[in-house]
C-alpha cells in the first residue's frame, strides 16, 4: 500500500525546489547531514540534462549498531521538465554505482566488516511554485543480500514571496524511510533559506536529532 501511495505521488509529479544538478557546465555540491544519514556529493552538469559526479553516504541503523559507508560514482538525468508561468515540474533519474562497507556490529557475533558492490537507481519528482513545494523520491540501494531502499516525501511553503536578490524563508516537512536500517518513518520539519547563491535547511527530526542540508552551485 505504501509503495502504491508513493507511486501515485510520483505519477502526480510531486514537487522539489532545487533539483539534484545545476545548469549546464556548472558544479553542484550537496550535503545532507544527520546522525543516521550523512550524504555529500558533487556533480558536474555535462549538458542541461545530464550530470556525473561522486558521492559519499554514511548510513546508520536506529539502534546504532549497523553502519554502512557507500562511495559511488553518480549519474543524474533530467527526464522531463514542464515550465509554466508560475510553476516548474521535474522528473529526475538518479543513479550510482560503487562500493559499500557493511558493519553489522552484532554484539553476539564477532566483528565483521564486508565490502560489496552497490547499485542505487532511483527517480525523483518535484513541483514548485514561488510559494509551494512538493517532492517525492524513491531510490533503490541494492547489493548482494542487501536492500536499503530509500523513500522520501517533502512538502513546504514559503512565508512570503521575495525578489531574486533576497533570501526566501520556507518551512519544509520531510518524511523518509530507509529499508532494513530505519524502520520507523523519520519526520523532520525544517527551516529552509534560499538565496541565489545558496540553499540551506536545518531542523530537528522526530527522534530529536539535528539535521542540516545545503546546496551550492558554482
Amino acid at each position, binding site marked *: 500500500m505504501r509503495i502504491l501511495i508513493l507511486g501515485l505521488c510520483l505519477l502526480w509529479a510531486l514537487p522539489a525546489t532545487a533539483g539534484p544538478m545545476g545548469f549546464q557546465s556548472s558544479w553542484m555540491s550537496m550535503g545532507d547531514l544527520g546522525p543516521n544519514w550523512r550524504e555529500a556529493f558533487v556533480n558536474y552538469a555535462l549538458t*542541461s540534462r545530464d550530470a556525473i559526479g561522486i558521492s559519499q553516504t554514511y548510513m546508520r541503523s536506529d539502534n546504532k549498531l549497523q553502519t554502512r559507508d557507500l562511495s559511488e560514482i553518480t549519474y543524474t538525468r533530467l527526464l522531463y521538465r514542464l515550465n509554466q508561468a508560475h*510553476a516548474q515540474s521535474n522528473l529526475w533519474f538518479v543513479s550510482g554505482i560503487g562500493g559499500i562497507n557493511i558493519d553489522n556490529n552484532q554484539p553476539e557475533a564477532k566483528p565483521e566488516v564486508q565490502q560489496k558492490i552497490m547499485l542505487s537507481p532511483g527517480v525523483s519528482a518535484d513541483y514548485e511554485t514561488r510559494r509551494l513545494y512538493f517532492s517525492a523520491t524513491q531510490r533503490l540501494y541494492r547489493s548482494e543480500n542487501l536492500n536499503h531502499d530509500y523513500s522520501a516525501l517533502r512538502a513546504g511553503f514559503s512565508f512570503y*514571496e521575495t525578489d531574486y*536578490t533576497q533570501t526566501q524563508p520556507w518551512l519544509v516537512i520531510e518524511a523518509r524511510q530507509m529499508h532494513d536500517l530505519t524502520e520507523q518513518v523519520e519526520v523532520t520539519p525544517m527551516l529552509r533559506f*534560499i538565496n541565489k547563491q545558496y540553499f540551506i535547511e536545518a531542523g530537528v527530526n522526530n527522534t530529536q536529532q539535528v539535521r542540516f542540508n545545503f*546546496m551550492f*552551485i558554482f
Partner: protein
Amino acid sequence: MKKFNLCVLMILSFNLQAAEIIKAEVNGMVCAFCAQGIEKKLRKLPQIQDVTINLKNHIVAVALNDQHTLTVNTIKDLIKDAGYDVTDIKVMQGDLQQFKQP
C-alpha cells in the same frame, strides 16, 4: 564650467537611460537558487552590461554594452540551455531599473 558639467551629466544620463535592452518573458523561474544559472550564463557574454531577473513577473532583462549587438536568439538559446522556456522576447530602449521588483 557648471554648464559643461551639466551637459556631461545630461549626456551620461541619457546614455544610461537609453541603453539597448533585451527583455524576455520566461516560464519556470520560481526560485532564485534555480534561476541563478540564467544570470551566470548571461554575464559571461561580453556584449552584456547588466542583467536583471524579476521572479514575480517572470522577466529576464539584459542591458547591452554600447556598440555591441546581440541577437535575441542568442539570449533565447542561453535561457533555454539554463533549463527555462522563453515565451516572448523583444528588443527595446530603456533602463533595467524598470524591471526590478519594488
